[in-house]
């Protein structure tokens, strides 16, 4: 990990250690991550500007900086549209014509992501967004923070190619219907495009520019999910290590029993190797080609999807009955990890795609979801 990335991670971690405790976490999960005051607090700290280019008054750091921030946010389990705010404006501004100079609204906007590929091979059940000449059509379930967002970033694929739209979430033809969410950190909704969605507004990216953007978008979505999962895993190892030293049974701390020690050792090996993999991925991502980036991202997410969930499950087991309750925050970490697990592909789906790529050449891009 480079010094800059380590610094970003430490800055975020230090602030959260100081100003974000279990009580705040509970308050934020009660409103499922939607709290404008909190978002303003974070915006004032400058985190959302980390990877926004200099020209748009950002800090101009590489996108890897967002990954470093996500590790700390995952460790403290901070709800809200944080990955969206950290990544989407920064990424869009890199791809829009003229550096997006006419989109000064972007850095401050909450952008919700409507990309059926997030569901991998489940997109048949969750999303049928397709590109039509007049604009995107179909619907997707779930979309994080669609109701609350200012803008929807819509990836619409068709036989003619990919188009990226940026639509007002309250504009004509866009129907957003909140649905119950089992992710304690996010509000969810179904987004339906009743034609003509976004009438009169042209896509912001088309053709090969859209393809390039979407490739990067998906890779970074995977990398950020892996980083958040790494944070979750590292956080739970620390928490569980502390717990087994104070909880006593048979007259001894349970951490003295070898079955417990070995479980903790395995959790440590999983969490620290996942963390190392994320560090290396962030380091390498900055200098890699599009094909390499796809592979790096898929590998990181594949490992994270498996390793972090295993760490969560061991943490629950090591806490005994308490681990099964809502008295500790373990269940929040676990539910978040489960929600992230299949987001842009779980380990089964991705290892399969990686294998295919190695056997038959680059095909890592999501299969086109033209239905």
């Amino acid at each position, binding site marked *: 990990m480079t010094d800059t990335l380590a610094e970003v991670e430490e800055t975020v971690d230090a602030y959260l250690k100081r100003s974000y405790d279990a009580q705040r976490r509970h308050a934020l999960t009660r409103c499922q991550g939607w709290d404008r005051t909190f978002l303003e607090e974070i915006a004032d700290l400058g985190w959302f500007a980390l990877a926004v280019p200099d020209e748009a008054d950002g800090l101009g750091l590489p996108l890897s900086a967002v990954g470093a921030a996500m590790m700390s946010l995952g460790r403290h389990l901070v709800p809200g549209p944080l990955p969206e705010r950290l990544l989407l404006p920064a990424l869009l501004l890199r791809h829009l014509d003229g550096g997006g100079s006419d989109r000064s609204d972007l850095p401050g906007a909450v952008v919700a992501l409507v990309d059926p590929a997030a569901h991998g091979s489940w997109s048949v059940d969750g999303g049928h967004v397709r590109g039509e000449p007049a604009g995107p059509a179909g619907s997707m379930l779930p979309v994080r923070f669609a109701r609350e967002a200012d803008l929807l970033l819509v990836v619409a694929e068709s036989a003619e190619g990919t188009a990226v739209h940026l639509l007002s979430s309250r504009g004509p033809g866009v129907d957003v219907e909140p649905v119950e969410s089992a992710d304690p950190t996010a509000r969810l909704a179904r987004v339906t495009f009743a034609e003509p969605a976004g009438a009169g507004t042209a896509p912001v990216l088309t053709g090969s520019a859209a393809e390039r953007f979407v490739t990067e978008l998906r890779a970074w979505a995977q990398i950020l999910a892996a980083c958040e999962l790494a944070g979750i895993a590292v956080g739970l190892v620390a928490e569980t*290590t502390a717990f087994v030293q104070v909880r006593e049974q048979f007259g001894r701390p349970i*951490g003295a029993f070898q079955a417990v020690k070995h479980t903790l050792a395995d959790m440590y090996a999983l969490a620290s190797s996942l963390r190392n993999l994320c560090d290396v991925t962030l380091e390498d991502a900055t200098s890699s080609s599009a094909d390499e980036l796809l592979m790096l991202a898929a590998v990181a997410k594949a490992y994270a999807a498996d390793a972090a969930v295993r760490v969560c499950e061991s943490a629950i087991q090591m806490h005994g009955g308490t681990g099964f309750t809502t008295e500790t925050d373990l269940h929040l970490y676990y539910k978040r990890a489960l929600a992230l697990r299949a987001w842009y592909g779980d380990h089964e789906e991705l290892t399969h*795609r990686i294998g295919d790529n190695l056997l038959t050449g680059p095909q890592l891009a999501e299969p086109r979801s033209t239905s």
Partner: protein
Amino acid sequence: MTTMADPALAADLTQYRTQCRKWLAEARIPEVPLSLTERFRVLREWQHTLYEAGWIGIAWSREAGGQGLTHLHQLVFSEELARARAPQPIGLIGLDVVGPSIDRFGTLRQRTELLPRLLSGEDIWCQGFSEPEAGSDLSSLRTRAEIDGDDFVVSGQKVWTSWAHLASWCAMLVRTNLDAPKSRGISYLLVDMSSPGIVTRPLTQMTGDQEFCEVFLDRVRVPRENLVGELDGGWAIARHTLGTERAAYTLRRRVEYEVALQDAIDELSACPTRDADPRRGYRVRAAVGRSHVALRVLEAQTRKTIGRLAADTGPVPEDSVDKLLLNDIEQQVYGSIADLLGPLRATPAARPLGLDVARWAHDHLYSRAASIYGGSSQIQRNIIAERILGLPRD
């Protein structure tokens, strides 16, 4: 490969890599024969060839006959050697395990007389640590050495001693003090394997190879000048030996697994019937993908190891995380490939999916040893829990 803090070193390593490649491209790389004695002879010659060309003992001191370069140079060569599909020299126990400890703790005479011969392959070394009653609990070892004039007189038994039947020297742990606590009564001796009173009996491994032995010692006389370090001070040296073994071994093995997976991918890619049955095609892709992910995890892990090697931290508890991951990943990779042999794994001459059954079935069996030797996976977990996480000791 790595993000190197020092640009001069990075440039030097790049240049060194070019030299390695060039030499390996022109070298006559030997075929490895199946029979053990033939293999031993060929690989010993290969070690001599490598030694003459300056590729052995790369990170060793010059007095000891080494090249006086860094561990990173050694790593570069190991990587290139594996990528060239060239075999390892035969004397790895000497080169990676016991030699570095002798170089560090030995007397000037021991270092200058014994180490150049170790490097050149003239002397093959073995490591006599484990005993029938002292495996994981190594410090309970019982082989006795009593002082008699200018000699130690050694009696007892060693086991699992790799290459003992072919070795000319053994780095042996012996008990020299019965009154001191277990680990404070152990000394580190260099034993000439041709001494009277030594009998070796090879044991057959599940791979069919006879790489390790029982070693029986009956009143074997060992000159006192063959003591390494202090009398009763052998335990610290043994810990150094085990630690050195871990870091160097991890780095070398990682590249070997990568080369192995690439070979499997090459065999699988060339197989026209790979997708003839979609169920099997699915499994092939999953096995390759899973193995690749595992190897990337190992690569990320070893970048930290390289950092420690570059900073010369010596053995640390984090090495145990490397060892645990390494064992797991070796077993995962070879297990995944071997599963693709299907029912034909029982017929070594077959080539299901284009895979070489004899090779993959052998290497898969061999992978089962990984979590046993050099400190079992259970022992590594104990170390992680106690020394890294600070959980109570047993």
